[in-house]
């Protein structure tokens, strides 16, 4: 009954991609000019794909909700971008990066896709360098590397703590070049509100112009979604506050399967929530855990300030529980351990939902200068936001929602289950399994956009060269536009008393408490009921001021929150179905006697791809069995 075919090429792992490229169908230059491609999103994946397809000669329309493509949320990535250059001569290779990603993802990703991501990583770095991205260099003029969590080699390229920004601006420059050449047309301040399918193929999208409110029709021979993740489901997260799942969700409701929705990475070192008005959690880079020590007081509800608590009354719980890795355990493990201490009543700060990240020992040992050179900008950021001076007092940190490994299901072509609809970057599910390793998101997004999609989409479009430009006068466009307008009108006509943000906060709280770092059957079932009630309240008591025909930021928010209720419901279903613990998904029922995550490979070594069957109808679960041929499946231990 399953409809899933990942279309993985035959042959040895290391030869699959080369073979694919050698046998993929091509489109000649004259025909490319006649083919339109829509790309939604302008992050590393989206703008990379748009510029790459533009260079090839396709007619590309690129959309983003921001005022300019340069603000897509790839801009906020701090640490770095991985590549297997082995410039350090420390034994790195494509296989090793592949292996680290498969293991880091807790054996829940697809071997062939992960290997390909590792394979194109070097091309990505070379391309960025050629475009003038100012990566850090050593005194010989070569690129510098640093190491990152969960691996034993130095393969991370970086531009201070702003690698994402520099990579994105590089990608934005390549996009601008194509805009100047007329191959890419840019549509900023547009939100995709529907997908249009004609005769079983993806043929366009409906957007809302966020300035005029106009509902617009855009057609193409294929559509690429590069719309990022849904981490803002928790309301408070490290994401840009306008990041949203809506485009991917519309596609899902039109038939694209959604894979592993419950796999969300919770980053352990974020600045904690300070007040009830807070809109956003700011990340403190993972690199701080190289020198900072994490602790809480040994005594419950200890009200003394940190520096007055003597050494023997401090509990360095990561060092205590994981002597081998100490403060450098992977993100999922560190996050759960912080939650465990706070839930047990040992948390610090006003709310009790924080732990200390302390640099006292590092400063005593290395001096303030050395620490400032490494982390000066982050310490300053901490001071600006919290008023705490980390040179004197320990930082307060707490885990925060960060990255979604789950997303639209795609095959080896990065195509969803709807023909002609592709999904790249964070918006697809494919490369990170149940947990993502640091510095691999920029890598995957750029690889997908610049080096993989251009081949796979051409392979698809080669069969479409005889199809003339798609008219937007089709009945399908008419219907899609009508449904978009009806929904918007429904939202503004509720005319209740509560704001979209207040619903988002409450939704986020339910998800954080019951489908966050730790999950159990009882809690998930409770969440499902609470979500249902809150959703009903939303649709009867929402207030949106203003009208449909101008800038209306409350309307934008409300549409996204409405979708989030549906995403949340599926997330909970997925978390309920997967009774094992793996990576970021921790089911309390599945743990070792020491409280560590316990995988169940016999029953859950599959990708859960969910099919939407209609409003209030049950989802159908399709299982893509994961076969591990080139790695041995082992237990992850950090003791």
């Amino acid at each position, binding site marked *: 009954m399953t409809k899933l075919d990942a279309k993985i090429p035959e042959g040895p792992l290391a030869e699959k991609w080369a073979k694919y490229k050698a046998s993929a169908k091509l489109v000649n230059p004259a025909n490319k000019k006649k083919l339109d491609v829509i790309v939604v999103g302008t992050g590393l994946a989206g703008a990379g794909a748009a510029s790459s397809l533009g260079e090839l000669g396709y007619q590309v329309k690129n959309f983003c909700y921001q*005022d300019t493509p340069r603000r897509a949320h790839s801009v906020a990535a701090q640490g770095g971008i991985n590549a297997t250059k082995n410039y350090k001569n420390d034994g790195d290779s494509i296989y090793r990066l592949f292996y680290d990603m498969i293991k880091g993802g807790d054996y829940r990703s697809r071997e062939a896709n992960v290997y390909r991501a590792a394979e194109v990583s070097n091309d990505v770095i070379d391309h960025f360098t050629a475009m003038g991205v100012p990566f850090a260099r050593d005194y010989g003029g070569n690129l510098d590397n640093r190491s990152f969590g969960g691996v034993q080699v130095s393969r991370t390229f970086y531009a201070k703590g702003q690698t994402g*920004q520099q990579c994105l601006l590089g990608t934005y420059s*390549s996009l601008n070049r194509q805009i100047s050449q007329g191959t890419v047309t840019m549509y900023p301040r547009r939100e995709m509100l529907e997908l249009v399918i004609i005769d079983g193929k993806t043929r366009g999208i409906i957007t809302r112009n966020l300035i005029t409110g106009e509902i617009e029709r855009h057609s193409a021979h294929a559509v690429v979604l590069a719309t990022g993740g849904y981490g803002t489901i928790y309301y408070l997260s490290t994401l840009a506050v306008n990041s949203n799942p809506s485009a991917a969700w519309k596609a899902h409701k039109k038939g694209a399967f959604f894979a592993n929705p419950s796999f969300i990475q919770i980053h352990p070192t974020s600045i904690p929530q300070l007040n009830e*008005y807070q809109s956003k959690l700011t990340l403190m880079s993972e690199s701080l855990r190289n020198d900072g020590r994490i602790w809480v007081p040994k005594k419950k509800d200890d009200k003394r300030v940190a520096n007055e608590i003597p050494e023997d009354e401090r509990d360095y719980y990561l060092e205590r529980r994981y002597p081998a890795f100490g403060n450098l355990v992977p993100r999922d493990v560190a996050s759960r351990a912080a939650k465990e201490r706070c839930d047990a009543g040992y948390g610090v700060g006003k709310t009790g939902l924080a732990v200390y990240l302390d640099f006292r020992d590092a400063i005593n040992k290395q001096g303030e200068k050395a620490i400032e050179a490494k982390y000066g900008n982050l310490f300053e950021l901490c001071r600006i936001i919290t008023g705490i001076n980390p040179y004197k007092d320990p930082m307060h940190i707490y885990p925060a929602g960060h990255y979604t490994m789950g997303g639209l299901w795609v095959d080896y072509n990065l195509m969803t289950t709807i023909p002609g609809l592709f999904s790249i970057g964070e918006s697809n599910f494919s490369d990170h399994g149940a947990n993502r390793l640091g510095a691999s998101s920029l890598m995957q997004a750029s690889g997908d956009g610049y080096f993989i999609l251009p081949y796979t989409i051409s392979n698809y479009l080669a069969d479409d060269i005889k199809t003339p430009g798609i008219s937007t006068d089709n009945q399908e466009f008419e219907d899609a536009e009508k449904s978009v307008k009806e929904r918007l009108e429904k939202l503004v006509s509720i005319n209740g008393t509560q704001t979209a943000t207040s619903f988002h906060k409450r939704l986020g709280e339910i998800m954080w408490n019951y489908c966050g770092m730790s999950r159990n059957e009882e809690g998930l079932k409770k969440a499902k009921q609470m979500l249902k009630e809150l959703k009903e309240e939303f649709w009867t008591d929402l207030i949106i001021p203003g009208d449909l025909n101008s800038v209306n930021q*409350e309307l934008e928010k409300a549409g996204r929150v409405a979708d989030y209720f549906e995403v949340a419901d599926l997330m909970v279903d997925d978390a309920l179905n997967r009774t094992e613990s793996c990576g970021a998904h921790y089911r309390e029922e599945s743990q070792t006697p020491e409280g560590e995550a316990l995988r169940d490979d016999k029953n859950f070594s599959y990708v859960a791809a969910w099919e939407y069957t209609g409003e209030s109808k049950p989802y159908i679960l399709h299982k893509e069995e994961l076969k591990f041929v080139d790695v041995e499946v082992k237990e992850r231990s950090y003791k």
Partner: protein
Amino acid sequence: MKLTLKIWRQKNADAKGKFVTYDFDGASPDMSFLEMLDALNTKLIKARIDPVAFDHDCREGICGACGMYINGHPHGPGKAITTCHLSMREFKDGDTIYVEPWRAKAFPVVKDLIVDRTAFDKIQIAGGFISTNVGSAPDSHALPVEKSKADEAFNSAVCIGCGACVAACKNASAMLFVSAKIAQFALLPQGRIEAKERVQAMVKKMDELGFGNCSNTGACEAECPKEISLVNIARLNREFYCAKVSP
């Protein structure tokens, strides 16, 4: 905190705007400035008043979306920070705070505090790139770059495109913004090949779009949230003259 907020309200690009006064006592010192506006907006929405529109996104100082003229300064009184990082600790109970959009001919007001900054994109489209196709790059180490040059290029490249420099300038000049991109590429060997065409094309576009001239006041540097240096403008001038003298 009790505050008197005087906020620029303008329905759309064609409407006439004005300051509207809001007495607001819902602020707390550990809020960010944008969170204070969120709280004000919640109050307005519940009173069925159109909330104050403003651009914002990452809220961690890197995307460049936010930008308001607060008490006479782009991004407010804090040094080297964006509006989203401005803390209410910078203000006192009882303060009156003026909030305006960027004021520049090239940045027309869209609504309230939102302005149209597509002029910045147009300048970049005119030449803010290195012409290299995907797949054609040599190995990254085929072209070493002196560390000092690479670091300097990075310092120019940190511009977030927020437009504070234009808002700060009495001439509404975009010289700091343009010069940062010119300098980044001029400092790198990859960028030298098109350097002459690039500087002329970008300056031409900047002039066409109605930005003013630079009179070396330095307000842009003083107000830039990323502390982009005036040295970039000197480099732009040098690149521009050299391109004219020996095209």
